[in-house]
């Protein structure tokens, strides 16, 4: 199961607009299960409610794991989003 580490290097962390963009990006990969880990806590990357309570502040390093048909594509898309500073399309 592929896994990447990402540093959330923005002003607000995975909150507000960045959180929404993260979930929207993850939700594009329907047959893929994507999990976000912050420390010992993990959550479903497609759940905005879980992601918000995961408490990913600015500067946090998260681990993202994916499993399923488009696992690599999903991780690439999330990496581009986070490393691109959450700029919109």
């Amino acid at each position: 199961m592929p896994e990447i580490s990402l540093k959330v290097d923005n002003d607000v962390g995975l909150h507000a607009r960045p959180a929404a963009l993260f979930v929207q990006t993850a939700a594009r990969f329907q047959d893929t299960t994507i999990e976000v880990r912050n420390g010992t806590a993990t959550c479903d990357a497609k759940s905005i409610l879980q992601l918000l309570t995961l408490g990913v502040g600015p500067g946090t390093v998260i681990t993202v794991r994916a499993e399923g048909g488009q696992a690599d594509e999903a991780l690439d898309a999330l990496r581009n989003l986070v490393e691109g500073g959450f700029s919109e399309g």
Partner: protein
Amino acid sequence: MGGSAPALRGTPASGGRASGPVFLVPEASSGGSAPPAAGTDPEAVGRAAEAAADRLVQLARERAGTAQSAAAILEAQAMMLRDPSLLSGIRDRLASGSSAEEAVVGAAETFAQQLEAVGDEYLRQRAADVRDVGRLLLTQLRGGAASRLEGLTEPAVVVAHDLAPADTLSVDPSLLLAVVTETGGPTSHAAIIARELGIPAVVRLAGAVEAARGAPGASVDGTVGEVRFGTASEVRTAAGGRRLDLGALPVPLRANAGSPAAVQAAADAGALGVGLLRTEFLFLGREEPVSEDEQAALYAAACSAMAPHPVVVRTLDVGFDKPLPYVPPERAEPNPALGQRGVRLWLAHEELWRPQVAALVRVGAAHPNLEVMIPMVATRSEMVDVGTRFQEAAGRQGATPPRLGMMVELPAAAVALDRFAGLAAFVSLGTNDLTQYALGADRELDWGVELTEYNPGVLTLLAGAIEGAHRAGLEVGVCGELAGQPEGATFLVGAGADYLSMAAGSLGPVAGALGRRDADRCRTAARAAQAARDADGALRLLREGR
């Protein structure tokens, strides 16, 4: 009878005053009479959530232009409705025998409490969102997708225990004279949306629903957070609509008006002046010219209603689409848009300009807030001519002529405003005609966004006109439709306009947009919009306000 009721105090959430009849929002039906229809079918939960989310996204799209934060809130709630963990939480509860209501409310509440437990203000608002989402989903499951404000058909002070953004945004904002809720805080969604729409609001007012029950009317002061519920007779006299608090904005907002009654309404609404008083209403639909006395009486009434704020009276602007029966065109005009209209026609007809100039000079002598604006000026000589006529009339009356300005609607004038220094004290950008002439596209034909004011070339023309006018020492107002759009107002303030004038109904939304952006942010956005590749890009930059 018995004097007016004591004021109740809540938390001020959106400035301004309003009074009118009370509309008490029905509580989201909680069980009781109607048994849940297909509520316990797990499949139905998914379908209902999808339908409710679709409705929010649709509402968000409709409001994206005028109420951006509100649209973002709706989109966030739609995302929660589609959240797989919320839906599985509901399904798990249904599988273990909960009723639809218990399942939905229970699942939403669990997430709400988790969000609140983090102890961050932003997440506390998200907790309120999850609870809203639970209520929306429950309503949808019961087959009642309708808004709780469905019964609101006349403008009223809306009172509720709590109000979801989807409720507030489901009705025409002009029906919401003011909003009063028992819950919420200054940063809650109800408050954010009220500020964005320019609607006075008081939140966290304990006992508001009880006090509103049986009270036919209320007056609300959203600046200090006071609400007074009154008797029927008090309401009838106080049914004055809503008054905006426009004091803290980067530039004064004025209203456009077409009659003295509209000037009064603009004054009541809190406008800081009239930036365009059209005088065509006096002339159209009549068989003969209007006398000096009749004109003077109406101008004086308008100036009194708005004092001490300025009233800019535009001299008669007819021809083209507004022909006068007693002033036939002097020659056949194959293209009346480019024919004898505005100042060209007015100067050519003594029976039109002479009584109007005399009336304006007379009223100006008694009302220092009167200003005069000349439409469709193309050349310096036209303004020289106009100035001479005002000087002569003033000389005859032993008065000083009123402050004189020109409307900028022609590109050639817009790029050469320094030539008018000394002839005009101010200019007002008539962005509708200026855009049509700059793009060669009739706005009535709806060509799409690229042939509108947001075309970067037109934005550059407007910014250059403002800068050129300022260099020549002229005050710059804007009275075209662009000033009444939140994105347009952001641009114009950023480009340096000294005041904006708009339809009275736009004052609230524009005040809401400008209240969130200081002059610096507007400047940055205005510069970026001029440099955008196309109108679509410019609009996006102005919406984001960066």
